[in-house]
């Protein structure tokens, strides 16, 4: 039965050349454009999450640390017993946008007394933080501190890749989920067509239930989505030198998880809408909104805190976490267990919800 639904959807895709191009050619192309544009993003006033450690007792440096702690324009986390490695870990895991370790006397520029711990996909945060510290120091004692910083990457293996590579890695997940959502919404619109021309009536008059019908669609959309995401990973590897070969199984899991959540979300949207036109509008709006808030268009650290919190309720956030965690932060499959849980359980939950809603709607 599931195979039969699968066949219907496959033939629909295979015989629609436009949809075929949209599904398999456009994603890589758009990814390349997005990556090229956004990897050089810069500028702007940001409300940064910063973690800080203080590894000196020089009065001027201690005073700077206190001033930064009291500064409302930063969300600064500080614990007296934190070391530089703690700060690196926090930045690596994305708990903070940038880290700061004060290791010497800020009145002596060499060796650099301030180490800035960065995630290269958030270079803009480093620039903003440096500018901010310079301003604080200038206000405090008339000092300038241009040469007082040493940049240190929080991410493993950073020596092999320039900053741009990290930004490209970010957009592997960001672009994948954007396309998976659009593609799944397009595929799920078959449900509306079936409802509109009474195919649903015919099917449900027979022995098959709503869960099996939607299960077949879910399986198809998940498979197609997995292939689409994999194609983006391949483009990232071939044209942007993103190291993927040593993480293929884990990346496969990320592709599958992102595709699963996209498929479930799309079927849910289809079950909540009454017509194709309505579905198109709702789908476009939903995908663009989720993509904007979830970090597919602009990295989430550039957003205000409240928007970052809302972004966690989008598929985009979790897909980006999965890909970025594997490719940039060097996290293992086990490290990302919460992410897999959300992706796969979210996919299953949205499928079940779509089934319940569709079942009820068919009874009206």
């Amino acid at each position: 039965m599931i195979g039969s639904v699968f066949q219907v959807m496959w033939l629909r895709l295979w015989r629609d050349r436009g949809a075929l191009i949209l599904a398999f050619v456009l994603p890589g192309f758009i990814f390349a454009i997005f990556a090229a544009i956004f990897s050089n993003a810069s500028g702007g006033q940001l409300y940064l999450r910063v973690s800080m450690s203080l590894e000196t007792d020089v009065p001027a440096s201690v005073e700077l640390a206190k001033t930064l702690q009291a500064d409302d324009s930063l969300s600064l986390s500080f614990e007296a017993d934190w070391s530089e490695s703690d700060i690196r870990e926090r930045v690596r895991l994305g708990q903070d946008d940038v880290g700061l370790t004060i290791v010497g006397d800020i009145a002596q520029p060499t060796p650099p007394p301030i180490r800035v711990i960065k995630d290269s996909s958030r270079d803009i945060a480093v620039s903003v933080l440096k500018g901010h510290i310079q301003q604080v120091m200038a206000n405090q004692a008339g000092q300038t501190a241009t040469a007082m910083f040493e940049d240190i990457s929080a991410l493993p293996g950073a020596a092999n890749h320039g900053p741009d590579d990290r930004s490209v890695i970010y957009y592997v997940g960001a672009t994948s989920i954007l396309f998976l959502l659009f593609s799944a919404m397009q595929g799920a619109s078959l449900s509306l067509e079936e409802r509109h021309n009474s195919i649903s009536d015919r099917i449900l008059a027979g022995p098959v239930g709503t869960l099996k019908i939607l299960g077949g669609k879910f399986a198809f959309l998940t498979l197609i989505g997995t292939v689409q995401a994999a194609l983006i990973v391949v483009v990232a590897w071939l044209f942007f030198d993103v190291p993927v070969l040593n993480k293929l199984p884990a990346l496969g899991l990320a592709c599958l998880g992102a595709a699963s959540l996209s498929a479930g979300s799309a079927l849910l949207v289809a079950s909540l809408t009454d017509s194709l036109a309505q579905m198109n509008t709702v789908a476009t709006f939903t995908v663009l909104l989720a993509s904007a808030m979830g970090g597919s268009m602009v990295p989430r650290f550039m957003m205000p805190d409240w928007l970052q919190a809302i972004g966690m309720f989008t598929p985009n956030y979790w897909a980006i976490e999965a890909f970025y965690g594997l490719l940039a932060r060097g996290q293992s499959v086990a490290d990302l267990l919460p992410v897999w849980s959300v992706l796969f359980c979210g996919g299953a939950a949205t499928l079940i919800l779509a089934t319940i809603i569709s079942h009820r709607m068919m009874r009206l």
Partner: protein
Amino acid sequence: MKPVLNIQNLTVSYGQHVVLDAVDLAINTGEIVGLIGPNGAGKSSLIKTLCGRIKPDDGHMNVGDVHLKHGRARRHLMGMVPQDIALYPHMTGRENLAAFGRMANVTGRELRDTIDKSLRAVGMTDKQNVRVGAMSGGMKRRINVAAAILHAPKLLIFDEPTTGVDIPARDTVHRLIKSLAERGLAILLVTHELEQVESLCDKICLLAEGKNLISGPPPDVLWQVYGPSRQTVIRLARSPEPEFIKALSGHGFEQAELPTVWQTFRNVKDVGIISRFLASTCTDKAIIREVLVRQPSLSTLMHHVEHTGELP
């Protein structure tokens, strides 16, 4: 003989609103039963209940020996031909049948044989590999029917099969319905086309406001309602003056669907009323365009029920 479909005392409500009120209906093998009634009479609710999409409040509904409660098993015995062309236009006729067959749990060699049999039954064997989107209206209708008989149902439901359909396609559907009934299928035909019902159906079931007003063979139903009466219709060239209306009313005429159409029901022996009226009362003969004396039809009955919700 045990009916294929046996509905007794079926009651369905949406909240407080009763949409089917103690409806009875039976269809035997090879029988075509027309389900008719005004909009909102409960026809769609009855079909949805049959298909398991609405849970009834009360009553018994058996398809063959399978009771209402056994939804899946019961639905194995039913086929549904929706009003729309419920087919995937990007797939050929055969591919559609294969898909719907698998969804009805028919697989392998049995599926191939069933598809061939269904295609033969609707006369589409030679066009089976044409995409549905490229088929004519009549061909689509045939495949639409073939998809409903794939799993060899005992009962086939046609839901408004010829609404908005051109004459050749309509004739195709009529021939198919006849032919399928001759093959032994019990057929429930839901329609607003009463001429179709009179010519095709062995029995009718007339619903109004959720109640089964009357059922039986069309001639029996009409005899039961109208007896030996004949419907006398006078069509006028223009709207009549009050004095003329008074004369019409005095002879038992009442206005029908238009101000220019008046009718009365009299015993067949009493149709002389027309000549008496024309000779004695009607001085303005030019106003009369047409005079008809005919047996009341299902259209006549339906017209009355649509306006009153009751039998005459």
